[in-house]
């Protein structure tokens, strides 16, 4: 399976990719913001997107709205990993097209469970 991890923090990208590797997933693309994420998607399909919310240039929400409008990406599973955990934030993310949500800070088990849940539902 092919994953796209979008986060302006290289630390957080590495933590997420380490988790994916532990789940046996080794094909991971990286992007530092939503605009770079869209460029990566133009190179080919992915099976799952894992994205941050607060990023410079293009936020995670703007990115997901753009992804949902792209041919072939309307139903790609999206997991949002963010500190934005107020009720209004979660509603906004779900409306933008996010499938599941991980609140930072998170334990390794939490993110594994959420990734598994999104993959199982696929």
């Amino acid at each position: 399976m092919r994953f796209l991890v979008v986060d302006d923090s290289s630390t957080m990208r590495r933590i997420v990719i380490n988790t994916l590797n532990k789940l046996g997933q080794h094909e991971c693309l990286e992007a530092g913001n939503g605009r770079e994420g869209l460029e990566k998607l133009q190179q080919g399909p992915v099976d799952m997107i894992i994205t941050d919310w607060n990023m410079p240039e293009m936020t995670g929400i703007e990115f997901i709205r753009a992804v949902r409008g792209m041919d072939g990406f309307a139903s790609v599973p999206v997991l949002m990993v963010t500190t934005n955990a107020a009720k209004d934030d979660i509603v906004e993310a779900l409306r933008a097209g996010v499938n599941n949500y991980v609140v930072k800070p998170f334990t390794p088990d939490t993110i594994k469970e959420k990734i598994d849940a999104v993959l199982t539902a696929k």
Partner: protein
Amino acid sequence: MSEALVTKLVEATHEVFETMVFQTLDQGEPLPDAQGAPKSNVVGTVGFAGSASGLVAFYSTLDAAKAITGAMLGMEPGEVNGEIPDAIGEITNMIAGSFRTKMATEGDAWAISVPTVTMGSDFYIKPFSNGRRILLPFRMNDNDVYVELILTKQR
């Protein structure tokens, strides 16, 4: 400064360290309106604005920053080098973001900025002249780290 602000910021700091750095912190006595900044080599800051406005800052020594970064990335502290600014930025981002979420339950709505990190051995951070400040000292093993809240507008 309201007790809720301090309590929520302390809770957020403990949660971030316990889940992402795998360390428990011992908390010192809060220092309201502390003069100057604690001795540090690495400082992360995140601004917030909305019903209240201000800044959350995280201060650490280089040794503490290496220990934090190593724990987050599964590396030995001695192997850590260029990863520090991003890791400390993310720690500051998570403390400020978790603080923001906790304050939302108290009716506060803020937007937060992306983090900024300053590293060096000889710099001075001038506090806002019109802001209320509180400095929260913590001890992580043999290292002191600090979280500061500066408020320029309060609900």
